[in-house]
Structures are given as structure tokens and as C-alpha cells.
């Protein structure tokens, strides 16, 4: 079920009523909300529900076993083996559904280059939407048990609620169990819903997704990325900028709607985007882009690998492993590996420069501007690989960026304005937005209704008749 649909609007009204009416009865409330989340998920394909339910049961069994293997509040050796098995099981499921075909064909093609012919069994596997997100949430839960961050396992219904909660089920944010569990057990006051902020986030997310992302994709990005040979270098450059804005609008738009819906249901999700394109370094970018993923990778991959505590060389190695695997998390293709590798290299270079390079008497403002420009263009260059259908296509596009000289055919003042406006919005203060939200929350219901209905009308009229799935659904 996609967010920008009538079906979801009606579904959410039912979920909202069920949530607040049943909340005084915790067990009934949990069962009802899990049922609603399963319905939401099964709307795509009912088989997905089985997988999700299986993941919930599996991780409940692992969690229970982990607590049984604790000695003095810490995991025993047997407990650590259970944890490794639990993580492996989760990754195994993810690997089978998402990476089986990629690994098998990559291995076959690599061996074929050496004249070794193999005929591996190829399975036509449907990738369940959101599997990467709920698998990462489940892993964070059992690893946090291993790190003694829980004093008892979550009851099955609470774990089911956490892993299946529909606002964040298919495209995040990746909410940790340590954040969600207290909110599940604590009963929020139904008189204190921050509706102004929630409605603002939902409307903002819809505009980002339905209007901005769709417009840029259709009118600029897709035509150029599909056939770069037909476009000038200026258009190619514009399309690369356009994709940077498109994916930001698409993904942060989804996150805005997810956070807004969760707020209306009494849950506060962590922030997932914080004006990422204002970053002056790649490291800063990762503190602002898909924050729930970057912190997950930091806590459950980078730090366990040793982080930055074992010398420069190993730090660089850990960064590279984390970023390349982070790239692969986004999709089973070499283009995503390349995307992660570019970020890894950029982070590595940044670390070296930070230690050795001193601005040669440049004024701080000039250094800041140069840093921002460099960072933004490295990020954009990496997006080329993220968007391209193959490495060959990515290089074709970059080649066109250098060699293309044909006249413009898809230049659009609207697209340029949208790109500039979104980049400029990254530098806006949040204070003015907060003030508008507060004013909205205090307005009379009729005024709120009229304003929001007009906003929906504008979004629907300006958006395409049919919304493509969110880009991050495929991850």
C-alpha cells in the first residue's frame, strides 16, 4: 500500500481509531495493530506476510535463547554462539531473497572468464519489499540483547509490533528496539498529539514525493540517464544534479510521511535526514543522510570491526568494508558497490587531508564554500553509479559529461528552479518552520481542514496520475 493513495488514507483513519481506542487494552491493541500492519504489508503480496511473521517468531526464539544463556547479566560462550547463529539466520534470509541471483551470476560470470563453465541453479526469487529494513531492525534487537541493553526479552506481541509497525515497515527509518520498546510499553496521553508537526511532515513529504521527485524524474533525470547520447553535457550535468534532488525528495519525503503518521499514532521516530546537501565533508554528509542507516552501520558493523581504534590502516580498511557493504545493502548490483566504494575512498581521502592539509591562508568563508562545492559534487558523482542501470551506463553518462556537445532538448526552467530551491532549502533555519507548525496547531479546526484539503488538491493536481513506488522500496 503506497502512502499517496486513497486506499492508504482510508486505512490510516481506521488504524488511527483502532490505535487510540484500543490503547488502554495493551494486548488487544498490540494484536490489532499487528493485524493492521500485516494487512498493510500483505496489500502488495500476501506471501510477504508469512516472511515477516517468520522473522518475528525467529527473532523471538533467538532472543529468548539469548536470555537463557546469560550468566551474571552477560552472554556466556554458548550465548555468543546463539547470537552469531541468530545474526547469520537473519542475514541468510536477506541474502537468499535479495542477493542469491546476484552472487550466483557474478560467480558464474567470473569463473567463465577463466574458462570454467558452471551451471548453477538459478531461482526466480521475488524480493519482498522492506526486507532489508526489518532484517536490520531485528539484528539490532538481538545484538543489543547480547550487549546487555535489555533486562528481559520483549514479549512476542511487542516484538511483532516493533518489527511490523507499518509506518516504518517498508522503507524505514530503521528504528532501534531500544527506542521503540519504551514507547510500546508506555501509554501516551491521547490529548497531546503533536498534530501540527505531524500534518506538516505528511504534507511536506507528499509534496517532495508526488510533485518534486516525480517532476524531476520524468522531465529531466530519466530521459538523460536512459539515453545520454542524445543530450548535451550541460543537460547531463543538470540531470545528475536533478537525480541528487530526486532521490533526496523521494526518500526524505517517505521518511517525513512515516514520521508524521507515527506521531499521529503516538510514536516519535528518530530524525533520518538533516539537510544533507549542506554538508561540507563526506563524513558530515553521513551524519545528515539516512541517519538511521549510517548509525546502524556504525554501531553494528564499523565499531565491531574495530572502528578507528586500531591505527590508520585498519581504520581505512574498516571504513571501506562498512561503506561497500552499505552500498551493497541498497541493492544487489555492482553499481551499488561502486557507489559505496566512492564514498569509502572519499572518506579515506578526507581523513588524510584533515590530518595533513592546512588551508593556505584562505579566508574561512572561502574554505567553507570550496569544501561544500567539493563535497556536493563528489556526492553527485557517486549518485551517477547509484542511478545507472550498469557500470557501463554510468561511464557512458560520465563520458558524455565531458564530450557531449549537442544542443539542449530537455532543459527546463522549472527543473532548474526546483533543484536550486531544494538545495537552498538545506540552508534554511528550522525555527521559521517550527513557528508555522505551532500556528497551524493552534488554528481553528475548520481552518486546518481547509488548508490541508487545498494542499492535497494542489499536490494531486501537480503530481502525475499515478505515483511510482518510492525508490527505497527496492532496498
Amino acid at each position, binding site marked *: 500500500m503506497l502512502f499517496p493513495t486513497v486506499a492508504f488514507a482510508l486505512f490510516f*483513519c481506521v488504524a488511527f481509531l483502532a490505535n487510540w481506542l484500543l490503547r488502554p487494552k495493551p494486548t488487544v491493541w498490540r494484536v490489532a495493530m499487528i493485524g493492521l500492519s500485516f494487512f498493510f504489508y500483505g496489500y502488495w503480496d500476501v506471501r510477504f506476510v508469512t516472511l515477516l511473521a517468520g522473522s518475528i517468531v525467529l527473532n523471538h526464539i533467538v532472543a529468548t535463547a539469548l536470555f537463557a544463556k546469560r550468566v551474571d547479566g552477560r552472554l556466556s560462550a554458548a550465548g555468543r554462539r546463539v547470537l552469531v547463529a541468530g545474526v547469520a539466520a537473519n542475514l541468510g534470509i536477506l541474502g537468499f531473497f535479495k542477493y542469491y541471483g546476484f552472487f550466483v551470476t557474478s560467480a558464474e560470470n567470473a569463473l567463465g572468464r577463466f574458462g570454467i563453465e558452471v551451471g548453477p541453479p538459478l531461482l526466480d526469487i521475488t*524480493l519482498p519489499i522492506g526486507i532489508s529494513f526489518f532484517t536490520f531492525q531485528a539484528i539490532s534487537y538481538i545484538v543489543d540483547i547480547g550487549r546487555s541493553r535489555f533486562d528481559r526479552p520483549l514479549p512476542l506481541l511487542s516484538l511483532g509490533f516493533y518489527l511490523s509497525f507499518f509506518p516504518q515497515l517498508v522503507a524505514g527509518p530503521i528504528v532501534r528496539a531500544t527506542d521503540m520498546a519504551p514507547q510500546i510499553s508506555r501509554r501516551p496521553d491521547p490529548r*497531546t498529539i503533536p498534530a501540527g508537526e505531524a500534518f506538516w511532515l505528511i504534507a511536506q513529504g507528499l509534496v517532495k514525493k508526488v510533485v518534486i521527485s516525480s517532476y524531476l524524474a*520524468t522531465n529531466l533525470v530519466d530521459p538523460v540517464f536512459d539515453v545520454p547520447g542524445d543530450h548535451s553535457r550541460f543537460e547531463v550535468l543538470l540531470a545528475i544534479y536533478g537525480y541528487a534532488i530526486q532521490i533526496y525528495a523521494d526518500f526524505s519525503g517517505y521518511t517525513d510521511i512515516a514520521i508524521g503518521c507515527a506521531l499521529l499514532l503516538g510514536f516519535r521516530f528518530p530524525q533520518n535526514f538533516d539537510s544533507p546537501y549542506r554538508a561540507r565533508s563526506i563524513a558530515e554528509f553521513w551524519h545528515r543522510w539516512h541517519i538511521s542507516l549510517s548509525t546502524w552501520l556504525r554501531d553494528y558493523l564499523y565499531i565491531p570491526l574495530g572502528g578507528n581504534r586500531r591505527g590508520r590502516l585498519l581504520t581505512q580498511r574498516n571504513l571501506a568494508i562498512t561503506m561497500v557493504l552499505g552500498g551493497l545493502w541498497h541493492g544487489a548490483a555492482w553499481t551499488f558497490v561502486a557507489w559505496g566504494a566512492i564514498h569509502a575512498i572519499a572518506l579515506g581521502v578526507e581523513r588524510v587531508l584533515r590530518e595533513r592539509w592546512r588551508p593556505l591562508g584562505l579566508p574561512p568563508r572561502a574554505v567553507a564554500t570550496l569544501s561544500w562545492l567539493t563535497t556536493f559534487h563528489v556526492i553527485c558523482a557517486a549518485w551517477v553509479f547509484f542511478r545507472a542501470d550498469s557500470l557501463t551506463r554510468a561511464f557512458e553518462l560520465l563520458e558524455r559529461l565531458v564530450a557531449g556537445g549537442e544542443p539542449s532538448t530537455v532543459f527546463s526552467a522549472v527543473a532548474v528552479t526546483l533543484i536550486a530551491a531544494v538545495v537552498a532549502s538545506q540552508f534554511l533555519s528550522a525555527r521559521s518552520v517550527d513557528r508555522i507548525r505551532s500556528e497551524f496547531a493552534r488554528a481553528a479546526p475548520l481552518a486546518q481542514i481547509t488548508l*490541508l484539503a487545498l494542499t492535497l488538491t494542489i499536490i*494531486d493536481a501537480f503530481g502525475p*496520475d499515478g505515483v*511510482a513506488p518510492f525508490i527505497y522500496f527496492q532496498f
Partner: protein
Amino acid sequence: MPPLARSDQRLRPVDPEHDQRGDTMPAGKVFVVMVGVLSLAALFNAEAMLQRVETSELGRGRDVALWFWRPVEAVSTPLGFGMPRSGVEALRGTPGPDPGQTVAGSDPESSEQAAEARGPVGGSGQLGHEPFIPDPAAPTTIPGTGGPTTTPLDPPGSLPGIEPGADRPSTATPLGLPPPQPQPDPPAATAPAEPLSTPVTDGTGTAPTSTTPEPAPPGSVFPLRRPTVEDPLRILIIGDSTMDAVGNSMLRDLSNTGVATAELDYRISTGLSRPDFFDWPGHLREARAAGQIEVVVIMIGANDAQPFLIDDQPEAHGTELWFATYRHRVAALLDELTADGGWVLWIGQPVMRSEDYSAKMQQLNQIYAEEISRYPTAIYIDSRSVMSDGSGVYTAYLVDGGGTRQLVRQGDGVHLTSAGGDRLSPLIVEELNRIAPLY
């Protein structure tokens, strides 16, 4: 360590910061606002919504939606609730909803009008509009055969409807369709003497992949003409969402020839079953009038195995009348496209993962091939043999000419990946090359 598992029944603010600022609302008021917003938005957008529902897939869902939206629209329009929407559309410069399209090519105006995001599923319904890709699980029954079929194709003419070469429903007044136009005489020096009648293959790779004239020997006149850099071959590539990958691969391949200009104009969720949703013949009439198009490449049908309206009455997919009407629509489109000597390359639907759905597509392929065989300037291209394994069975992976195994089908088992498009495109360009030398 967070408090866990133990249910804490004390009420706490959802967000203490907001609560202190006093900009929170009680759940009851929030619900009233939500229902109010949806109701008022329904009134503002009733006309557009009704139009979407009317052109959505026939069935109970549509009936229920019509039952809701008709009275809403009846109230909204006279009371002027549609004015905000009209004002916004006037600002935008487009009148009412338009089926999504993705246009790639060299026409800036068309690009500006493109209204659909790139999507692999044939379009998802915004605000209630559902995609037309039919339910693959629905059983397929060809009247006269007595049951579901996944067998290889019957010989041409075995499907119900109009026999190839026989008269189509005259003026089709019962169907409300226009009479077919007379066939243009083929160019004397270029067209084959006999109508092409090679049957569509069953995808085993043993039969010819297209019904096409033999390539002209060197020095002879090509069926269409010899394009040049100064006077390139003008090609329009159209279809539903299955044309996405193929069309883009074709644009790249044709661009490399230097003697062809092509525009891709595919519309998701469209086909010939629901002209009330998108009128391809009318659209193409306008497109051909606007530009001097010489060849139309078309790939359509993936959304067509569904009921449609005949004189406002739903006709279930699979009946004799359904096939007869559909065949007539194919013929009418070919009449339109081949008028004035225009050429058509019609790409059949590939093997699909679902056997039932694949059988339905093969029924349509058979109609396309049979009708096309009657037009001297139309060529049918069988995609099944190229997009299946050696025995005509669906496969998501195929080995390319360089020995690399590639994913050629998307996860839905219907659409092609970019690599799949790259695999099919050369076949079409080669056919183009036979009628007008491109390299």
C-alpha cells in the same frame, strides 16, 4: 537501560516539548480534522476522481468507487467545490488528469508534458487509480477449446473472432466502432507480392522471429527508403510500460546509427482494451499529423487481458465477442498507422512468468500476427523466442553474446530489465534495417 516489557499505564505526553509549547491536539480533534480534510478534498477533486474511477479496471472495486464518487461529484460540481482544482489546473496549464506517460526523445514539448514517473510496475494508483496489469492468477479459457490452455499456439485463425482475411464486423455498429479504412496499395517496388502469413512462433526458437519481407539484395530499392544524415528515418516508439526498457535501448541503438531520429512515447497502464482510459488510435492520429512519422514501433497488450465496455456494458475477457472486438481494434489501429504507406513494427509480448498470464498474452500475440499478416507494410516481431530459454520457457536470466549471464526480467515476471531491453532491441533495429538501411 530502557524500561521494557512492563506495561506502564501512566499517561505521558507523546512529545513533552510540544506539550509544553501547547501546540498539541487531542485524538478526537485530530480524527475530526483528518475526516474533514479527506471529505473536503473529495469535494474539491470529485470530478477528477470520478474520471479516474470511470477509466479504472472493471469490477467490483470500480462499482463501489463509482457508487461513492458519482453522488459526491453530483454535489461538488453544482456547488462550485471544483473551483480550487480548476484554478490549480489552469495554473499548471493542463486540463484534467491524463494517463501517465514517459517521453524520451528529442521533442522538448513532449518532454515537458510527460507526466509519469519511471516505475517498473506499470504505474501505481494515486488516489485510487489502479494499474491495469491483470491478475495473472485468473484462469484462461479460450472459447471452443473447453478449458484453460498453456499449450503452444493454435494455427492462425483458430481463435474466436474474425478469421484472418475474412471480413471484420462490418461497420461494427453494435460495438460502436468505426469501420476499418481501406488498405493502401503497397509501394509497387518495395512491398512483397503476397500478404505475409508466417504464423507466430511458440517461443521455441525454431520458427522465424518475425513476419517480414526478405532483405533487399545490395543495390536494390529498400521497401521504405534509404535514410541519410540529412534526411533521417523518423520513428515513433509507442506502447505500454513493457516498452520502457526496450524503447530506451532502441533509442540508444538508433542514435548510434546517425541516420534515424526516434521518439519514445510509452504510456503506463494503457492498451487497446480501454480506449476510455487512453485512446491510442486518436493519440497516434494526432502524433502522425503533427510529425512526419515514417515508422511506428509498437509493443502493447500487457494490460489488455481484462474486461472492457461495449455499449457501456462490461464484456468479460475471453469471450468470442471480446476477441472479435479486440481483433477489430488491432485492425483499426493498423489501418490508422499504415495509412499513406506508413510502416509498423509490432513487437509481440514476451513469455511471462505466470503460465496463465503468458497464455493470455500469447492469444493476443496470435491476433497481432494474424492481423499484421494482412498488411504489406506491417511486420510482426516475436519476442518470445529471444526472451525465453532454449525451449520457450520463461527465464529471468539469459546469457548474452559475450557469454555473460544477465538478469533480463524484472521481479514482477512481466517487464524487462535494461539488459532485457538491450537483448530485444537489436532484433527490432535489424528489422528496421531491412526496410530502410541504417548501417
